């Protein structure tokens, strides 16, 4: 029996059916040909219905969501935030909070560098803070510390209390119920602007916000009547020192308190010197005279441990080695 040898081809026959190269289906969005469907077309109608009804229901649902979302965001920000800032916030989408934190860090680093270098000006600080708060209007710490950095005199800060006030006002628009921003506002008006009327008003409004501590009201009252008085200022700084959440703030407050106390001590000494002149008929040449005359028990020391002295102009002054910085309170 003859054996038949068929064509022994091991060649892989790629049947070049046009559709097996499915890539041809890809880029052009042609309407798919409806193949021969059997009684399954029932479920296809069902699917088409789902698509149609689903797309239609999106509208009312979206409106509802918009309402809900609005309640979680404060809308009045548009009043005071620059379009460029809100645009940046929107561009960063759900990650704006992260960007804000990054910008805040940059602001802090900027401030720290300049402070360490005893810089005379902090040109970019205001912009960085505006960007930060534009990205996250609820970043309270940026308003609080930011305003401190802006208001303080160089090298402690940018020496720009007006800008600090503007920053705080933005913060208040975005966070109207947070009383500490009013506290900060009042402080800047009081200390850097010496505008006691505005300061009192700020403290008063702040005292009415939820959670405000009772001393706010006290402060409002004292500032109104005795703005610039020693006791009022002391009260303010004491409260700041007590509630500072940060060591550097507390330290700053303590230094200010010390300076205040020193200034008060100098004032008292001036009073004693005047009394001495009145009584003895001539100026005291040094504090030793006062001690000798019995007005003082001993040469008083300033909080830095150095003795006070009498300046050539006849007034009490700090000793040459004193470490107190009276510039803080003038």
């Amino acid at each position, binding site marked *: 029996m003859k054996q038949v040898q068929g064509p022994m081809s091991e060649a892989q026959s790629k049947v070049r059916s046009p559709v097996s190269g499915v890539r041809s289906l890809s880029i052009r969005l042609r309407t798919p040909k409806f193949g021969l469907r059997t009684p399954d077309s029932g479920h296809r109608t069902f699917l088409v219905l*789902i698509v149609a009804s689903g797309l239609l229901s999106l509208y009312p*649902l979206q409106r509802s969501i918009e309402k809900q979302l609005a*309640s979680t965001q404060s809308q009045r920000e548009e009043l005071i935030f620059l379009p460029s800032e809100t645009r940046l916030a929107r561009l960063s989408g759900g990650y704006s909070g992260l960007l804000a934190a990054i910008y805040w860090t940059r602001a802090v680093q900027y401030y720290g560098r300049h402070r360490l270098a005893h810089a005379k000006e902090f040109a970019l600080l205001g912009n960085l803070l505006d960007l930060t708060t534009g990205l996250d209007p609820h*970043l309270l710490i940026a308003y609080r510390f930011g305003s401190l950095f802006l208001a303080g005199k160089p090298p402690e800060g940018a020496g720009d209390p007006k800008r600090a006030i503007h920053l705080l006002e933005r913060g208040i628009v975005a966070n109207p119920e947070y009383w500490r921003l009013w506290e900060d506002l009042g402080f800047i008006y009081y200390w850097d602007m010496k505008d006691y009327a505005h300061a009192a008003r700020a403290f008063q409004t702040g005292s009415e916000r939820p959670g405000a501590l009772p001393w706010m009201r006290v402060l409002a009252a004292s500032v109104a009547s005795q703005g610039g008085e020693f006791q009022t200022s002391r009260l303010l700084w004491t409260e700041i020192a007590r509630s500072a959440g940060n060591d550097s703030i507390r330290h700053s407050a303590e230094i200010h308190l010390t300076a205040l106390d020193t200034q008060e001590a100098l004032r008292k000494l001036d009073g004693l010197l005047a009394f001495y002149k009145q009584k003895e008929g001539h100026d005291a040449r040094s504090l030793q005279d006062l001690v000798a005359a019995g007005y003082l028990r001993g040469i008083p020391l300033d909080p830095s441990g150095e003795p006070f002295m009498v300046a050539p102009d006849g007034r009490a002054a700090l000793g040459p080695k004193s470490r107190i910085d009276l510039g803080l309170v003038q």
Partner: protein
Amino acid sequence: MGRIITIALGAFKESVRERVLYNLVIFAFLMIGAAILLGSISVGVEQLILVNLGLGAISVFGLMIAIVIGIGLVSKEIDHRTIYNILSKPVTRAEFILGKYAGLLLTLVVNTAIMTVGFYLALAIQKKGLALHDFSLLIAVYFILLQLAIVVGIAILFSCISTPILSAVFTFCIFVIGNFSNDVRAFGQESGSPFLAKMTAALYYLLPNFGDFNVINQVAHGVMIPRLLITANTCYALLYIAVLLSGAVLIFEEREF
């Protein structure tokens, strides 16, 4: 139904084998680094940064996985020709799509869950303990998952139509547009052309509004998320996913191989 589960578990196993979950390692390093380093570079915002960073990373990593694997699910099968084998089994095309979707969703849920645990660990380390209200952050995670579920649906829909690369590009574009849909609509309104305004409004309502789900900043500041929003967003996501998957099935059933 059993077939859908089989396909879903198969897709999940494939993701694991494809070493997708290794992204978790990077995430872990990120969290640890943040927890340790943040305090020394900034003032007062350590927790804020950690929360924003953690939730942001969960969102971004999840998105990348969703797009990459989502495309691979159908496009890769077509490219590698493995689809011939599975479609010739007693599996309907709808079951295939649903199964793949479920599998990918499972991968995302597992991935997100692990990241969330890591995130809370970092938070606990930084805050030296966790309070009950810290768990309100989970709402943000849930919303992120809803977003990812929609993105995967989009990815699967496109991969039924197009090549892997184009599908990835389209999906990513829709995600970006969906995040800025508000601006698109505002642009149309400000443009002064009623036609443009109508077009952009239509786009706004038709395209998925991913901005609805962005509450990372709010929860970071402790703002309460209204329960109604949670319900509404869940419904929106479910609805949109139903639309996407139905569309995918309709298209896929017509495709020849």
